[in-house]
């Protein structure tokens, strides 16, 4: 039973494994070539565990010490986690340490897979997906730092697997007609923001757009009552 659960978790996270090996190894390699120590590189992956932010902070690690800009950067890049958290409140029902790790490991990839599972999925499965993704990222960072990821770097475009993963999980949701409105709202709001706003702010802006649309629908439903 346990073994079968692990096997299922690995199959579910296979695309993440491929994508993370590539991105995590690239991260380890860049940090190493920028002259950072293994300890700093690994601590960064262990403590931050947010790929987009870790890459965005690379130039910052080479510059002067600006704690406030660091805070702002992390907030702007990771504000989208708020939406993931709100989505997972009814699903993460472990207590104490189990729930801590469910939330701690809630990155884009873990969230996208977990939220595509049926509502009655066990807490163990959610936790396993998070922990597996977290482990892949750590191993990849470590390997990238040590071997300079010479091998992995040669495969061009492997990070596309994560883009494709988000796309196919979107398609899976699209099968349900009732889901289509808000899938479109999310996609359109983000496309609009990506085109018209600076890259550092588009996520925050698209979240605000999404909330406005939800509020408008709520108000109109309320008025009809």
């Amino acid at each position, binding site marked *: 039973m346990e073994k079968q659960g692990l096997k299922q978790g690995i199959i579910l996270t296979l*695309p993440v494994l*491929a994508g993370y090996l590539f991105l995590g190894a690239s991260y380890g390699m860049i940090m190493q070539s920028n002259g*950072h120590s293994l300890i*700093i590189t690994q601590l960064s992956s262990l*403590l931050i*565990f*947010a790929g987009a932010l870790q890459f965005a*902070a690379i130039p*910052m690690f*080479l*510059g002067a*010490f600006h704690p406030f800009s*660091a805070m702002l*950067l*992390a*907030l702007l890049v*990771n504000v*989208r*986690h*708020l*939406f993931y*958290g*709100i989505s997972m*409140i009814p699903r*993460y029902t472990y207590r104490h340490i189990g*729930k801590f790790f469910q*939330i701690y490991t809630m990155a*884009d990839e873990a969230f*996208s897979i977990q*939220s*595509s599972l049926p509502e009655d999925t066990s807490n163990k499965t959610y936790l396993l997906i998070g922990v597996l993704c977290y482990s892949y990222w750590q191993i990849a960072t470590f390997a990238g730092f040590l071997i300079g990821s010479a091998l992995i770097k040669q495969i*061009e*475009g*492997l990070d*596309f697997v994560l*883009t*494709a*993963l*988000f*796309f*196919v*999980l*979107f398609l*899976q949701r699209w099968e349900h007609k009732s*889901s289509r409105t*808000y*899938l*479109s709202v*999310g*996609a359109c*709001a*983000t*496309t609009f923001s990506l085109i018209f706003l600076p*890259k550092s702010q588009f*996520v925050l802006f698209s979240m605000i757009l999404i909330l406005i*649309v*939800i509020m408008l*629908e*709520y108000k109109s*439903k309320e008025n009809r009552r």
Partner: protein
Amino acid sequence: MTQYQLLITILILSLVTISTRFLPFLWFKDHKLSPWMQFSTKKIPLASIGMLMIYGFKDVTTLSVTAIFMQLISLILIAIVYKISKSTLWSLAIGVSVYLLVMNI
């Protein structure tokens, strides 16, 4: 930056990231969800998946024209295979393999 400052920067990035992940869970821990919140918690998961799907393309402008074209082809392929097989893993495997093969030959 000194090693010490670097460590502080990492801790700041970590703490802010942790806050963005934990805040919703702490905020709604004891609150009963208002009707507005109940309504939006039904819509936000779907909107998030829509957002994440586009978010995956945020660096598309840094790619070569060939790469963009091939991504488009393989996304169409993924959609077709998914439509037929209803398997996320198969459609991903086929779509991504085609992309990787073309890009690395």
